[in-house]
């Protein structure tokens, strides 16, 4: 008898608790709708798993921006609140994270951090019409839906910008090596070749390799036999390290250029940059940039997280400031249509450059390059 009574009592408590939950949820939704004093920003990115460092950096960068804005009195009288969900760099989990955030009543979405997840989420978010800003999804399709914007460069844009940059240096005969098995590398390569030849340059050697290759001597020997006056290497730092060492062993000393995948090459070479000295690559962010805004950010980041920020942290930071500007533009109107429309009208002076956004969601910003000098990255514009 006593047992039954206890069971009943517990069931009763549970039912009550559940009602309680439902009630508070409804209150939250209502609060979001009629514009209380909080703007809820949802964030999605990998906080665990292989790509965890990207997500963690983005979240950290975004948190610093939120803290700065709130300390300065918020936006249009409202405080910002960042709700960040882990997607483990998995598309399905990313969509689930999006649903969780929508249940919590977010006003705008920053994410996802990686391309494939960002594309998956935009499939859902475009139906809800919410403003989505991916800080670092570089694949072209990330901004395919009208509600999606991005902070970083697209892959093809990197190729075009570097083609222009190299020609400005007075070089006109380029040798290119790219990873034929990697979308990122191939995307940059194709755009680079098109732009470089269109602008009057000549591609004198166009070599490829496949993922996992460690021997580049054959390709480099062919390039050495060509009339190339520069070497464009659009791939990740691991292979860049191999190429730079092997080029030196073959006596090939052309100036080398690359894309943002180079970030990390100095660490890969254990700080010995003899063979890659003067190497120049496109990057949205260099922590050693003497720019005041950047140094202030680097200092804050170091105090809070005990490490130097990377480009993902800067992208996350800029995404939050883009939202701030958009809200100011609408004068505090948080409806989806108003915010999306406002995005194309703002001019953001961010850590990753001064930028405006077009209706396709693409940023229009100037390139920054980093040069490898004496074992460190040096910013150059």
């Amino acid at each position: 008898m006593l047992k039954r009574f206890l069971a009943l009592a517990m069931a009763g408590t549970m039912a009550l608790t559940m009602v309680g939950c439902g009630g508070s949820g409804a209150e939250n939704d209502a609060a979001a709708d009629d514009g209380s004093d909080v703007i809820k920003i949802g964030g999605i990115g990998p906080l665990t798993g292989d790509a965890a460092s990207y997500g963690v950096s983005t979240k950290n960068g975004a948190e610093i921006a939120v803290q700065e804005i709130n300390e300065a009195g918020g936006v249009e009288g409202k405080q910002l609140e960042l709700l960040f969900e882990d997607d483990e760099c998995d598309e399905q989990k990313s969509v689930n994270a999006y649903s969780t955030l929508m249940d919590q009543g977010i006003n705008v979405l920053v994410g996802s951090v990686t391309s494939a997840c960002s594309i998956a989420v935009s499939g859902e978010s475009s139906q809800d019409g919410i403003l989505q800003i991916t800080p670092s999804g570089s694949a072209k399709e990330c901004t395919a839906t009208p509600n999606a914007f991005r902070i970083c460069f697209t892959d093809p844009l990197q190729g075009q910008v570097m083609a222009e940059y190299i020609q400005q240096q007075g070089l006109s005969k380029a040798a290119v090596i790219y990873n034929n098995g990697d979308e990122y590398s191939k995307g940059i390569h194709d755009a680079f070749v098109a732009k470089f030849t269109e602008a009057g340059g000549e591609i004198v050697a166009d070599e490829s390799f496949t993922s996992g290759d460690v021997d580049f001597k054959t390709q480099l020997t062919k390039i050495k036999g060509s009339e190339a006056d520069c070497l464009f290497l659009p791939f990740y730092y691991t292979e860049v390290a191999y190429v730079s060492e092997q080029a030196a062993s073959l006596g090939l000393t052309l100036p080398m250029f690359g894309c943002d995948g180079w970030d990390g090459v100095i660490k890969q070479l254990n700080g010995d940059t003899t063979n890659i000295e003067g190497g120049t690559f496109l990057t949205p962010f260099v922590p050693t940039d003497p720019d005041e805004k950047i140094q202030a950010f680097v200092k804050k980041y170091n105090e809070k997280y005990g490490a130097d920020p990377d480009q993902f942290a800067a992208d996350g930071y800029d995404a939050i400031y883009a939202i701030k500007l958009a809200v100011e533009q609408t004068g505090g109107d948080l409806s989806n249509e108003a915010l999306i429309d406002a995005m194309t009208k703002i001019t953001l002076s961010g850590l990753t450059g001064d930028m405006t956004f077009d209706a396709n969601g693409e940023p229009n910003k100037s390139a920054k390059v980093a040069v490898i000098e004496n074992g460190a990255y040096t910013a150059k514009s």
Partner: protein
Amino acid sequence: MDFIQQFINGLSLGSIYALIALGYTMVYGIAKMLNFAHGDVIMVGAYVLSMAAVKAGLSPAMSIVFPVVICMLSCTVLGVTIEKIAYRPLRNASPLAVLITAIGVSYFLQSVALLIFGSNQRKVESVIPKFSVTLGEIHLSGEAITTLGVTVIIMICLALFINFTKVGKAMRAVSEDKGAAQLMGVNVNSTISLTFAIGSFLAAIASILFVSSYGFVGPYSGAMPGIKAFVAAVLGGIGSIPGAMLGGIILGIIESMSKAYISTELADAIVFSVLIIVLLVKPTGILGRKRITKV
């Protein structure tokens, strides 16, 4: 000019394949098993080398000798341990079971390296003093010369050892007929252990020369060179020591030439097609001998 340089590139690539193939062929020739973990022992050796090189604050001569000795010792111990734990219990099992076990050991070593060191490639300082020879436009790197020289010396030593020493005789006896060798007083288990010790010692030398040429190591660094070296061993005639050398050099040159003059993407396909063609035309490989089985 270009052609000669590409030929030299092929030669330096091929001498690494040859060095790894010597280990494969040695173990296969005696123990009659394909040690697919051979490439991964090389990978482990490279990691050991990278750690030993970092920790050594010794005189210039010792800072070369110390990591090399540590690398050789640990590879040899690893090889003998693998044999004892994974292969010895299967001494009388079917060759297929041993082959699958070897693949298992290979994955095990890769996963352990992935757990300990992560997936990033790690820089390893070369222990071979840097020098290069330049003749006109031809560049000959010190690593390539050293690798080729070491491979030739090892090939000769190995051939002499197997053909002219008492232990070598025991090895040949085990390779001919384990049962009969045991009846004649040869300790089969210790002979096979010794074979693995020598095979892994060769892997250590291969890892030293491999990282001197390429400078980096990752958990999967041993896999592809291992497979290519296996192809080289089969091409030259598996079990034959000069065959491994010849097979390795030929393979390196084919790979380099097809990359240079046909297509980079097709290079691997061409390399493996060569294997298929050789096996169709001459199943025992270039220098492999046909063994007549008497009933």
